[in-house]
């Protein structure tokens, strides 16, 4: 369905990223608690239709690259009893910015 999109992904596994801190009306699939937080790309899931468009009956095109992004619990909540614990969130590329040195990959 739709046109084939083979646009290259901007990030690769291991890349440090920061989630944009944005808010606007609409169907945003990036949870509040993770906006502005830094982590790293765990996995590249590929191209998916954009839910911010699909939710309003539009075609969701162009597709967006979806990533599995990992965050240290301590980087998200500022404290944790178990430093090795992580939260992993599925995030579309347009929510991510390159960052260096923030969020430590294990």
């Amino acid at each position, binding site marked *: 369905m739709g046109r084939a999109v083979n646009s290259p992904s901007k990030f690769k596994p291991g890349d440090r990223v920061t989630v944009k801190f944005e808010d606007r009306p609409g169907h945003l*699939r990036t949870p509040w608690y*993770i906006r502005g937080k830094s982590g790293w790309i765990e996995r590249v899931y590929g191209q998916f239709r954009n839910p911010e468009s699909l939710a309003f009956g539009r075609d969701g095109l162009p597709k967006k690259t979806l990533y599995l992004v990992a965050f240290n619990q301590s980087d998200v909540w500022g404290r944790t009893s178990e430093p090795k*614990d*992580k939260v992993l*969130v599925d995030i579309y590329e347009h929510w991510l910015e390159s960052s260096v040195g923030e969020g430590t990959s294990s």
Partner: protein
Amino acid sequence: MNEVANPEHGHDHPKHELSHYAKRIYAIRDLLIEKGVITEKDIQCQIEYQEARSPANGAQLVARAWVDPEFKARLIADPKSACAELGIDASAINEFVVLENTEQLRHMVVCTLCSCYPRPILGRPPDWYKSFNYRQRAVVDPRGVMREFGLNPGDDVEVRVHDSTADIRYLVLPLRPKGTENWSEADLAKLVTRDSLIGVMDPLDAISE
């Protein structure tokens, strides 16, 4: 639209007081049928389809993975075709990912935004999965939530919470219970609970007869 009970259009509506949303759902259903968009039978078939899917599908996948390492590798590499091998229809899932627990790593799944859940594999989500309580606390305090379910991962275990916010649906592949070395696949499947596939519990213990 105010009168919900209308004996003239062929079916009964519940007689008790309906919530605003329930009234709206019935009104939309009636309009869709009236305008010929869908039929009563379509709705009934869909309800039966939803109800037919259950955690037994997930249990079957896990039990096979426990007894057959090659199947396990395929289940992790390409979960949808592994489902097809066992006759499980996972086509409704956009993308399906299996998270393997180990002695050092434990996964837990939540959808903080709504209630995304691998329905073809697990059926309908439990009410607690959709509660604000679980959705908030699973990401903030996963170990605390696990403790309430009776799990207590040690300090040497890494806990990974997956917030299922987009097109991916997750299934946890729990560790095979100790003492089940000679068990049949069918008996193993009985140990695999729904909650162990969400990651908040272990499978049932092997109880010697």
